[in-house]
């Protein structure tokens, strides 16, 4: 009987996306896993919520099967270093790094690390290839770079008369330079003049907004990033105040008042990340778990904002392509 149970369990593990729901995550006598959460964002953290939800879905009960150790170092590389040394010393089963924190995590070699990156993990050097990560890192890449040009194109599709585009970018974000390069090239190809508004971390966000205000732009593009995510409402309201159509990376920005967003669903990505966390806690090696890339991208439109900007008619041409419309 025990053997049969074991086989059922093993079989269940193979097709776990369907079967594992509600099952006890582990057959071993009650081990409480310790998950180390490292983020350069600040709380409230929607990504952590998505990840937790994913683990709950896999049957983990927080406090009973799993405990989180949350470490936030919003824009402070020094603080992050401190966190890393803590990680090395502690008895940690899994580390999850969100966004730019991954860059600092490269020093960790003996604990499995799950990442959610907007950039390219191969370029960052944490994995050997997407198919075979080969080390202690694996996770998800948001494909941000490829979508950068697409966001510019969408804006131009809706507002063909756009000439100057303010591009707000946190330079303290891995791959930020390539993102800006792609954006600039797309804008120029579409006959637009991009105005680069760089800033470094949370401290400079207000300065960046002020700077953008002086850019004489007629639309605004904000790179998706932890800092802009935290300050999304401020950014969205700024665009509305300036009567600028705005384009963001994730639908959370639209929910906060942004006009448009195009990109992968962040929450879904972190939710999915929990399945990898489950497999790693069950003993699979990150080296053999390919880096996942999102397959579904959502175009979100906020019609309230469109109304506020008086661009409803222009928006109607894009609505059939929208995945999500906020009214």
């Amino acid at each position, binding site marked *: 009987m025990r053997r049969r149970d074991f086989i059922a369990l093993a079989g269940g593990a193979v097709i776990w996306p369907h079967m594992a729901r509600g099952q006890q995550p582990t057959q071993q006598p009650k081990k409480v896993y310790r998950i180390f959460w490292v983020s350069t964002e600040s709380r409230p953290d929607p990504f952590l919520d998505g990840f937790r939800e994913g683990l709950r879905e896999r049957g983990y009960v927080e406090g009973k099967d799993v405990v989180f150790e949350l470490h936030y170092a919003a824009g402070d590389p020094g603080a992050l270093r401190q966190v890393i040394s803590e990680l090395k010393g502690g008895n940690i089963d899994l580390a999850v790094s969100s966004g730019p924190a991954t860059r600092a995590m490269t020093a960790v070699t003996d604990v499995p690390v799950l990442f959610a990156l907007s950039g390219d993990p191969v370029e960052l050097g944490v994995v050997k290839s*997407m198919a075979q990560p080969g080390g202690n890192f694996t996770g998800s890449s948001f494909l941000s770079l490829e979508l950068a040009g*697409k966001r510019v194109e969408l804006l131009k599709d809706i507002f063909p008369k756009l000439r100057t585009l303010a591009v707000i970018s946190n330079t303290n974000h891995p791959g930020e330079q390539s993102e800006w390069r792609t954006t600039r090239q797309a804008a120029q190809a579409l006959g637009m003049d991009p105005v680069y508004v760089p800033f470094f971390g949370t401290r400079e966000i207000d300065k960046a907004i002020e700077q953008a205000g002086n850019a004489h732009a007629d639309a605004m593009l904000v790179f998706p990033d932890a800092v802009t995510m935290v300050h999304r409402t401020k950014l969205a309201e700024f665009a509305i105040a300036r009567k600028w159509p705005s384009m963001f990376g994730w639908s959370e920005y639209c929910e906060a008042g942004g006009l448009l967003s195009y990109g992968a669903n962040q929450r879904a990505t972190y939710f999915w990340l929990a399945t990898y966390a489950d497999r790693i806690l069950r003993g699979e090696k990150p080296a*053999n778990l*390919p880096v996942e890339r999102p*397959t579904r991208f959502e175009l979100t439109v906020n019609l309230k904002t469109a109304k506020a900007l008086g661009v409803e008619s222009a928006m109607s041409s894009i609505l059939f*392509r929208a995945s999500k419309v906020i009214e």
Partner: protein
Amino acid sequence: MSGLLRNDRYSDKVISPVVRQRRSLFLKYFVTLFVAVVVPLVIGAAGEAWFGYRDQRLNLNELLQADARSAADRIQTFIDGIGDQIGWVVQFPWIAGEEDSHKIDAERLLQQVPAIVSITLVDQSGIERAFVSRFGLNRTGRGADMAADPAVLGARTNKIWYGPLSYRRASEPYMTIAVAGNRAADGIAIADINLKLIWDVIASIAIGHTGRAFVVDDSGRLIAHPDISRVLRGDAGSADLNRLKSAIAAAKGAAVVTTGDKGEPVVAVSVRADNVGWTVIAEQPVSEAFASIRATLWRSLALIVVGALVAAALAYWLAHRMSGPIRQLEDGVQRIGAGHFEHRIAMSSGDELEQLANRFNEMAEELAVSKEKSERINRLKRFLAPQVAELVEQSDARMLDGQRREIVAVFGDLRDFTAFAARAEPDVLMTVLSEYYEAVGAVVTRHEATLTGFGGDGVMVLVNAPVACENPALRGVRLAIDMQAAVQGLVTGWRAKGHAIGFGVGIAMGPAIVGTVGYEGRIDYTAVGNVVNLASRLCGTAKDTQILLDPVVATRVKDSVALAPLGVRPIRGYDRPLQIFAVARGDFHLIRQDGRPTDAGVARLEAGRQLQDSEGAWP
């Protein structure tokens, strides 16, 4: 039964191996009964298991085939669905200035079909007219010449063309589908498909509870698998999968037992999705696939075990029931054999064994009777001639009881024995007595008379008791004559040795009471009455070689035997003197007192000779 008989024979002869033999009988019964029940049971159960296994194996094959077929159908439907959707964007011909409407159609298609990553629209002459993508920048207007592109060529020939599988960044599976419009003027749509999206389809296919289906292309590269991370590893495992695919294909549709990727044994079948040229492999862990078969086998085994236990109990009980009474019988026979004839075998099995026990009991009873009888004969033989004893035993034992009857008493007595005994050495005395007894005994036996006993030199013989005979008087006289002759033969020898011993005989006839007297271990047959005393007195009176008769005997034998009247003589213990006779001396045959034969005696003698010849007892 032969075992039983052999056993009995052994138990008669040897005692020590009996115990072992007895156990082996039990064992034989036990084994035979057990085997008789268990063998058919095992054959039945094994047969059922085997046929069950065969049926279930066939069922399993069909079931897996059906699952794989349905999985292949769903994959095919998924791909066909994408092809159909692509067909929507090649319904209108390319007219100058209407590129935008084609582009919007393409954007709608992207919105509609998440698996399509980008679409290239090519006009009649193979020129790219629009490109719409989820990631890259869109393009419209005349672009590259794609007339020689295999997608364009394939779609022109077959209406729809499926490109080969490729992995983006060696990880995500992609393929190209090109669809041509009904009219050449409608152009061709070339769509890039992200095959990761088949996951929804493949993951929803259940093969049993724990089985799964996955899709590989012709070279074994993984296209779709419920575990998406396996697909994302690119063609890393394609060699293994190709081997698996060939192994399954070699079985020509039959289910193959092979090793799954976790090292566990699985049963697998494959079905081809013909439109795209993919192979759908459905596999199920052996543990699940054969669960019902295993359950059947366990059931059969349990049946056998329970059956065997019941059979063992039954066989034990029966064997015990068979061998128990036999042991009891054997024990009883042994005791009877040892002489315990009073032993009875108590058995109430109600069958042949009980009957056998009853026979044994009867036998024991008869043995007891026969033993008692032989003991009695032995006792009779002490004073009866053996043949008389047999006769008495055969006719009626009550013959020996006390009764009054007419008897002839013969007394014999050695003359001058007392004087001889006083002088003789003991061994000489005993020799003389032994010779004397032997001679007398032989004569008594010959004449079937009854020897009541010796008393020193005296002997008492009865005739007509306990067995009646014809003419007892004559018989008694002849016995006396023989006895006298036999003893006189001895006397001659004794005298030669210097022993002055003679022998006299007295015979009387009359009523007396005869019967057995004595106590345990010592029983004698005797007669009591005047006739005994008379015979004794006559014997005492008789001189050596003389045979004295009382008047009764004399009257009875006077025609057969020559007698000499000795006149009236007083007899001690008798009031009146009696007429006494003596058998004529010499050969005693009709001899006158002067020694010559009488006239009548000649004829008598003649008759006596004839009698002698016919009876052979006349000396």
